[in-house]
């Protein structure tokens, strides 16, 4: 059993999304074995159980169910993805409790917000929205995540200001905030030292460089071979060493000189601290897998006349391509794709899309309108209950859940009575 699990783990490491708090190895084994052939009925049943608990919950801490549901989803779907519904779930959860002041500084709720922000294309917008709504203002974890986001983008100045804001708000736990702030400062000072060292880079590196997947180039007077750059925003070495470079260098600039962040030259155009402002312009589209951001076509060069040079369309071959006689298409495919049928499929409604933040605001607005009785339409059923989870329920399902709950209670009572009568008889 354990061996089988080990094999699963060895074979699918690359499909496992890292979690801040790590993963339970037993849950991971289970998830990987279960998911070999599609969604098992066990997973469907567990999900249905969570979905019904969300709707049936009557206690005074509804966030608890959401928290457990989301943690279960993270553990059960190690590879994330559409099947897990995690993004929808996070969005529903944070939207659900925006009006509940008692949760605004609840560490669990703030954690959900941070996870939600991290799944969005523009986490900073979400953090600013949280600030505007007063969510997580006394939670150190918000400031840490927020600052890390700035740091990833190379803006150390703002990363530091976020910590200052956190100290001003007396965010808890104070020690943790202090510790993270110190390590940020340490990283920044290392960057500065690096810069100083770079200036007199006659000497060879003192420590062995970490090799990355980049060509090694000549640098410096001695033409010593040294690591030149590492791309991407995620260059942050926590474990000492003076070699890590700070500001990310984008694009194919591998042979250009490094841009190194200089605190003293930091842009002063922006406000000196994160402003308390309502979120203004809509950020870019919703976090979707395999979505490519519009970017420069770096390889396309403009001609003198301002037209792009296009490769001429390939001329039609003058010969007949050889087709193997035995090469016949498979007789049956799992799903017949009939081009005529495709026209029936209606395109996904554009209204469903839009950014997470925009939807949050719309929800906010709708709630206000409903309070004022402004809305022109009223749905004559328990709409909130049907739609509150990640998947929808129908009336019959809700009623069935109530029925099963009642049956379970009744049998418990009966067995309780039996126990009672049994014990009294024993007396």
């Amino acid at each position, binding site marked *: 059993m354990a061996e089988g699990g080990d094999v699963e783990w060895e074979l699918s490491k690359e499909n496992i999304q890292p979690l801040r708090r790590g993963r339970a190895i037993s849950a991971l084994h289970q998830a990987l074995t279960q998911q070999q052939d599609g969604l098992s*009925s066990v997973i*469907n*049943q567990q999900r*249905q159980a969570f979905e019904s608990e969300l709707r049936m919950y009557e206690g005074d801490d509804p966030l608890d169910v959401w928290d457990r549901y989301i943690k279960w989803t993270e553990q059960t779907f190690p590879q994330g993805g559409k099947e897990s519904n995690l993004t929808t779930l996070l969005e529903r959860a944070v939207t659900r409790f925006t009006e509940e002041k008692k949760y605004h500084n609840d560490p669990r709720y703030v954690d959900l917000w941070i996870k939600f922000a991290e799944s969005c294309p523009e986490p900073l917008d979400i953090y600013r929205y949280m600030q505007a709504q007063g969510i997580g203002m006394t939670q150190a974890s918000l400031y840490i995540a927020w600052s890390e986001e700035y740091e990833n983008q190379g803006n150390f100045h703002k990363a530091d200001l976020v910590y200052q804001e956190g100290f001003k708000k007396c965010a808890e736990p104070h020690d943790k905030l202090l510790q993270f702030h110190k390590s940020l400062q340490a990283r920044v000072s290392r960057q500065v030292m690096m810069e100083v060292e770079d200036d007199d880079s006659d000497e060879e590196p003192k420590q062995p460089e970490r090799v990355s997947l980049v060509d090694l180039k000549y640098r410096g007077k001695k033409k010593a071979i040294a690591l030149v750059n590492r791309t991407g925003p995620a260059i942050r070495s926590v474990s000492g060493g003076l070699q890590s470079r700070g500001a990310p260098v984008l694009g194919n600039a591998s042979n250009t000189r490094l841009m190194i962040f200089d605190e003293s030259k930091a842009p002063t155009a922006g406000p000196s601290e994160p402003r308390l402002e309502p979120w203004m312009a809509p950020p870019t589209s919703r976090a979707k897998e395999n979505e490519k951001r519009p970017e420069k076509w770096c390889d396309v060069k403009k001609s003198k006349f301002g037209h792009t040079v296009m490769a001429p369309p390939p001329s039609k071959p003058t010969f007949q391509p050889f087709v193997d006689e035995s090469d016949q298409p498979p007789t*049956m*495919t*799992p*799903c*017949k794709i*009939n081009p*005529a*049928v495709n*026209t*029936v*499929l*209606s395109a*996904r*409604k554009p209204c469903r899309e839009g950014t997470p933040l925009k939807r949050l605001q719309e929800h906010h607005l709708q709630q206000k309108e409903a309070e004022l009785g402004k*809305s*022109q*339409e*009223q*749905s*004559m*059923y*328990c709409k909130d*209950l*049907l739609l509150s989870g990640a*998947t*929808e*329920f*129908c*009336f*019959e*399902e*809700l*009623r*069935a859940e*109530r*029925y*099963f709950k009642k049956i379970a209670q009744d049998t418990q009572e009966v067995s309780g009575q039996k126990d009672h009568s049994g014990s009294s008889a024993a007396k």
Partner: protein
Amino acid sequence: SSGKSTNHIMTGSNEYKLNQGPEDSISAVKFSPSTAQFLLVSSWDCTVRLYDVGGNTMRMKYQHTAPVLDCAFYDPTHSWSGGLDAQLKTHDLNTDQDTIVGTHDAPIRCVEYCPEVNVMVTGSWDRSVRLWDPRTPCNAGTFTQPEKVYTLSVAGDRLIVGTAGRRVLVWDLRNMGYVQQRRESSLKYQTRCIRAFPNKQGYVLSSIEGRVAVEYLDPSQEVQKKKYAFKCHRLKEEGIEHVYPVNAISFHSVHNTFATGGSDGFVNIWDPFNKKRLCQFHRYPTSIASLAFNNDGTMLAIASSYMHEKGDISHPEDAIFIRQVTDAETKPK
């Protein structure tokens, strides 16, 4: 109650209430395929009842271990039913004999019979459709659906399945190897009911927010252009439009017109060809949970029964009304 003891309570000259109705909400009413005399009724009181409509008496009833969500006639003497206990039962109405045919992994939501292929079809919240050979009787295949099955209907040898997440799947019952068509509901909200045209060319789909769509199976662009949707079962009160779920659809077998029933308690009859409402009956005491025309379209069974749309609150008594309908009410003009 006192109402049940007296015979033929007329709510109009052409309508009466059935005696000995179920003791809890009604989930489905289905007329016998061959005669207008018998009506099958499944209920949340865990029973399936057979009524003699002409004599206004209950002929028999049988029990499930949990509420029953749907029932269907296989032939005039055999009923099939399923519900929250996830068990599929067939009952011999002559000998009063029960047989458990099989089970799903979750409650069974729909039970239908396909005469063309001679197969019983069940849909369940376990995200599957199962076929059953009614002669043996035994399971004849399990077919996974992308979501929980909420409604299904048979059009000739084709099966139209409506699931959660507003998906619609069209299967060929003669070749269940693949899904013939995958569609998305053209309505924005949850699918409540799908019923196929008796002429087998399309289906009508109703949603939880006062809207009905008429769709065609032929994928050609020319035919697809004819599809449309319209608003209904909405009441304007004090400047606010109250939007009700449309729970029930039943087709008139001769005229291809159809009746819809909503949680507003109204029953409307529609002419899908001229896109017109033919008539609206009086308001029934509570939500319309199920509707059924008889085989020749002279009678309509109307189940007026609260469906817990707004939770477990007090509500008018559940009842089944039998209404004589005329050509004036059901024939396209």
